[in-house]
């Protein structure tokens, strides 16, 4: 890893569409550095899939790579078709919390259950950013959004924990305030055989910060730092104590047989049985 990191090796020369202070920018730089540190000089071994939303614009068309920008919530099914046909490629999904854990949740859970060999990076800004700040399945209880002007009355979803139950090989959560840990988690996810998921809790000053009562991005980042609790500590805390906290760390890392391994074994057997007939 003697070469220096040049982000433009991986990014097209197009203006990025994100607001100033948007966490998507941090996610891009962390991800591309992770890719660089894993020894990839370019993105030729990758295919990116995303849905609809601000976070879904991370790869498409900005990465110098094949990228499939699908419909809202449907990145994972499309990624499934690609991975099954081309198990040799690194299939990576980017999406917002609404995209992956709202409208697309069932695909996320089933991909984890299948232990499909893809990496999924969820940018959790706790809001529907692109559409202007509606409540998301990840919005903290009580938060004011455009569709919950009196404060949200729903509990947010803990996505990494759900995916541990579903069968993921790797699941982690960090915030964009944890740059180094986030990058390392992304590296680990990319190196995992099987389904890997990283949630990046991320500031959206435009659609979340203002209404939720944050003065600026710096204040959101401070909140991320102060309310983050390592998983090991969180295990000793009560559910009530945790409502205002962001639990960070590695939720699971395990080696289990992957979907493409099992599928291709089956196909080889079927082909053989057809030949011997």
């Amino acid at each position, binding site marked *: 890893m003697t070469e220096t990191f040049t982000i433009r090796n991986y990014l097209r020369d197009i203006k990025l569409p994100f607001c100033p202070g948007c966490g998507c920018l941090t996610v891009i730089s962390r991800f591309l550095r992770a890719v660089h540190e894993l020894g990839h000089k370019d993105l030729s071994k990758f295919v990116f899939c995303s849905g609809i939303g601000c976070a879904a614009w991370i790869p498409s*068309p900005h990465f110098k790579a094949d*990228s499939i*920008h699908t*419909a809202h919530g449907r990145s*994972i099914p499309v990624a*499934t*078709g690609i991975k099954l*046909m*081309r198990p*040799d490629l690194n299939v990576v999904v980017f999406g917002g919390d609404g995209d992956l854990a709202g409208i697309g949740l069932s695909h996320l859970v089933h991909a984890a259950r299948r232990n499909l060999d893809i990496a999924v990076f969820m940018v959790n800004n706790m809001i529907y950013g692109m559409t202007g700040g509606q409540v998301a399945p990840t919005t903290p209880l009580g938060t004011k959004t455009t569709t919950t002007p009196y404060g949200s009355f729903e509990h947010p979803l803990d996505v990494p924990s759900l995916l541990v139950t579903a069968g993921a090989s790797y699941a982690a959560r960090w915030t964009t305030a944890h740059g180094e840990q986030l990058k390392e988690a992304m590296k680990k996810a990319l190196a995992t055989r099987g389904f890997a998921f990283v949630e990046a809790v991320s500031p959206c000053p435009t659609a979340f910060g203002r209404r939720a009562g944050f003065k600026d991005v710096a204040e959101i980042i401070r909140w991320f730092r102060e309310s983050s609790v390592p998983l090991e500590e969180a295990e000793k805390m009560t559910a009530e104590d945790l409502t205002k906290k962001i639990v960070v760390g590695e939720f699971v890392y395990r080696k289990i047989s992957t979907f493409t391994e099992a599928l291709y074994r089956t196909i080889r057997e079927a082909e053989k049985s057809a030949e011997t007939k």
Partner: protein
Amino acid sequence: MTGKTSATHFWQGNEACAEATIAAGCRFFAGYPITPASEIFEHLARRLPQAGGITIQMEDEIASIGAVIGASWAGAKAMTATSGPGFSLMQELIGYAFMTETPCVVVDVQRAGPSTGQATKAGQGDVMQARWGTHGDYTSIALSPNSVQEMFDLTIRAFNLAETYRTPVVLLADEVVAHMREQAVIPPSNQIKITNRKKPKPTDKAFFNGEDIAPMPSVGEGYNVPVTGSTHNEHGYRFTADRTVHEKLVKNLIRKIRDNAGKIVDYESLNVDDCDVGVVSFGCTSRAIHETIELAKKKGLTVGSVRLKTIWPFPEEAVRNMAKNVKVIVVPELNMREMFYEVERVVHGAVPVVPLNKIGGGEMITPEELLAEIARSVKKVD
């Protein structure tokens, strides 16, 4: 099974469709169980892996068509099969396939709807859905088999058209054609015409939205192609506000089908030059036509028929020409009038067009019923 020699099989319609899928070179199927389409998946689940292909049961029909689209961009010919409720769920991503010019085949084995309707009973209520199912501006190709033989032949054709025009193609079957057993003659594999998508040259940079159909790269080939359902230019870059980019894209999507309608349209006509009454029919309903013509003869009535094998694009010329020779046209269908309006539009008042509709219970329109309607219609105009 197709091989070096031709063979005759006694197949179920869905089985013929599945075998044609393999013969067409399809190597990816994703689906979700639904009557009356499940046998296509079940047959392929056994047969496709033997040919080195993949079948996967997804969590729903949205995921099924999504996986098909992904597989297509990974270079595979890919298909899904469903019925009304699943076809409805797929519509958003079928639109994505139109917009991104993704070749794929969607089989809709029609049953009686709306909603769950009568799950095991035949219907023909998805005619307009096959044309306008997804939102926005586009035009579509849909084929309508009326026998087990055509479940084979038109499935092959559906793949060829999808690959040629880089578009989703709907095989609009129905419960009757899908579940009946009949003889099907399968030609030797070297006599089955197979079309594959045009691939780019290494120097190519434009993969969408061409005056001609653009070449289609696959992911992992080094073209760094951005694919998006948002409005895009020929390189795949998003233009979410520019009027001219949107207009050019959508007009090209429509034009590539409309300008080639003459090559796509397929129908079978009988007696059209010398008849008093014309019948325009498709799918299971059209199976009554031969007997109706014979019965009519005995009554001194001459009946001609245009049977549609492509329902979209609509065989306008054939229907318009028939209208020149007949006194009246009857349109039998297992729905509450869908094809009827299209025939009326094309005939444009030249002769009266009479609907004959029947729904529910999977009951067919019998030759006697069709003949009775023909006789009534003739009497009215005479």
